[in-house]
C-alpha cells in the first residue's frame, strides 16, 4: 500500500472549518449552532448520560502543504462536553508550504471540556503548523490530550525531514496557564535519539488538566501509569496536572492514554476511540 499516491495526485488544497456551539437549555446541554464548510465536519452521536460528545472529522483524508483546517467548539456556561476526532489525523509530505490547523475551543463559566483528539501521524517530509487553544472562563476547566506518532514503526519508518510546530495552550481569563510549543524539525529529529530528547521514542503524548481538582488528580494519574513499553511521568502545580508520555510505537501509548483518561474522567472513552 502506498498511502502517498492519492494525495500527491490531489492538486487542490483542502479548506475546512467546523464550528459547534453547545448551550444549556431546558435542563440539558444542547446543540445551539453547527456550521461546517469544506472538508471539516462535526457531528454529535447519541450518547448516554448528560455529557454530549462532539466528533470532528477532516474528510480530505489527510493534511498536506497549503491545507487549512479549523475546528471550533464553544461550550456554554455550566456545560460539560467531550470532543474528539473521528480518526487519527495524518500529515503527509508537503508540496508547497505548510498545512495549517487551528483548534480554538472556548469553555464558559463553570463549564468543562475534555478535548481528546485521536493521534496525529506524521509522515516523512510533513509540514504542519497547528495551534490548539482552549480558553477557559472563570470556574471552568478542561482536560486535553495530544498524541503524535512519527511515521509507522511497523513499516520501519524513521523520519528525518519534518517541519512540525504544534503549539498547545490553555488560557484562563485570557492569561496563559499551559503553553507547550512542541517543535520537531530536521535538526531536532537528528538529535532525537538523545536521552534529553525523545530517546528513540516514536510516539509521544502530553496530557494536561486545568481547573478545579486538577492538582488532586496527581495520585490517581500516577497510579494509572505503568503500561508496558511506555515511559511516563506526572506533575501537579499551579492549578494544573501535566503528564508526558513516550513510547516506541503508537499502540502502547494509546493503551496508556486510554487507561489514564478512564481514571481521570471517571467515564468511558469516546465511542470513536478504539483501544
Amino acid at each position, binding site marked *: 500500500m502506498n498511502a502517498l499516491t492519492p494525495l500527491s495526485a490531489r492538486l487542490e488544497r483542502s479548506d475546512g472549518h467546523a464550528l459547534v456551539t453547545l448551550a444549556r437549555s431546558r435542563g440539558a446541554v444542547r446543540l445551539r449552532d453547527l456550521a461546517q464548510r469544506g472538508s471539516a465536519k462535526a457531528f454529535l452521536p447519541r450518547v448516554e448520560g448528560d455529557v454530549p460528545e462532539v466528533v470532528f472529522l477532516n474528510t480530505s483524508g489527510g493534511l498536506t502543504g497549503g491545507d487549512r483546517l479549523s475546528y471550533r467548539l464553544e461550550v456554554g456556561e455550566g456545560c460539560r462536553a467531550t470532543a474528539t476526532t473521528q480518526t487519527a489525523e495524518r500529515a503527509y509530505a508537503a508540496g508547497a508550504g505548510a498545512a495549517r490547523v487551528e483548534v480554538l475551543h472556548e469553555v464558559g463559566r463553570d463549564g468543562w471540556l475534555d478535548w481528546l483528539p485521536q493521534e496525529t501521524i506524521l509522515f516523512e517530509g510533513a509540514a504542519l503548523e497547528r495551534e490548539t487553544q482552549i480558553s477557559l472562563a472563570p470556574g471552568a476547566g478542561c482536560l486535553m490530550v495530544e498524541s503524535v506518532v512519527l511515521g509507522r514503526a511497523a513499516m520501519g519508518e524513521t523520519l528525518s525531514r519534518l517541519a512540525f510546530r504544534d503549539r498547545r495552550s490553555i488560557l484562563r481569563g485570557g492569561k496563559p496557564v499551559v503553553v507547550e510549543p512542541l517543535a520537531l524539525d530536521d535538526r531536532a529529529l537528528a538529535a532525537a535519539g538523545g536521552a*534529553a*530528547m525523545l530517546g528513540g521514542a516514536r510516539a509521544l503524548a502530553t496530557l494536561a488538566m486545568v481547573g478545579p481538582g486538577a492538582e488532586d488528580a496527581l495520585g490517581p494519574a500516577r497510579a494509572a501509569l505503568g503500561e508496558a513499553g511506555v515511559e511516563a511521568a506526572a506533575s501537579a502545580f499551579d492549578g494544573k496536572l501535566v503528564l508526558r508520555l513516550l513510547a516506541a510505537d503508537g499502540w502502547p501509548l494509546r493503551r496508556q492514554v486510554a487507561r489514564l483518561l478512564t481514571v481521570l474522567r471517571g467515564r468511558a472513552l469516546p465511542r470513536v476511540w478504539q483501544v
Partner: protein
Amino acid sequence: MSAALLSLVQWLSPAFPTGAFAYSHGLEWAISEGEVRDAASARRWIADVLAFGAGRTDAILLAHALRGHDPGALSDLARALAPAAERLRETEEQGAAFAATVAALTGRDLPPRPLPVALGQAAAPLGLPVAEVLALMLHAFAANLVSAAVRFVPLGQTEGQATLAALHPRIGEIAAESAEAPLDALGSAALRGDLAAMRHETQEVRIFKT
C-alpha cells in the same frame, strides 16, 4: 572592558546568591539512572537542553525582556511554559533571589519574576548587545549543569571544563538565533528532559532541589 559587562558577569557568576548550585534541572535524575554517566553523555544532555529545551526558551524570553516587552505578560508566559512543578520552582525561586539581590545593589525596584524575565528587566539598562547577554546567560546555565555533573557523575575538573568549552560554539549559535526570534518561534523537543524533571519529584534520594 565596560562597567556594564562587568555588572552582567557578576550577576551571572556562580557566587551571585541565586542558589543556582541547588537546581539540577532534572540532571540529578539522569545521573542516578546512569543516562548521564561520563563526559560525552553529560555534554549531549546539556547541549540538547540548551538547543531544544529551556536554554533556547529562556533565551527568547530574555531577549524580549531586554527589549522592554511587557514583563507581566512575559512572566505569565514563562510560568505557563514550565513543564513540571520543579521547573517552575527553579525559574521562580532563582528569579526572585536574583531580582532581590540586584534591587539591593542598585536601589532599583525589581519585583520577583521568573529568571529570564528578572534578568532581562535588570540587564535592560546596561545596554549590552542582546545576543551577548543571551550567550552569557546560556553559559551560566550550562556551567551550572556541568558543575552538577562534575560533582555527581563524577567528572574530573579538567574534563568538566573541557565539556563546557565544547559547548561554546553551540551557545553562540543559540544566542544569535534567539536574539532575533519572535515569541512565535518558541518551541521545545527536549521531552525526556521534562520527564526527568517530573521523575525527580519522586526520586528517593535527592541532593538537588530540582
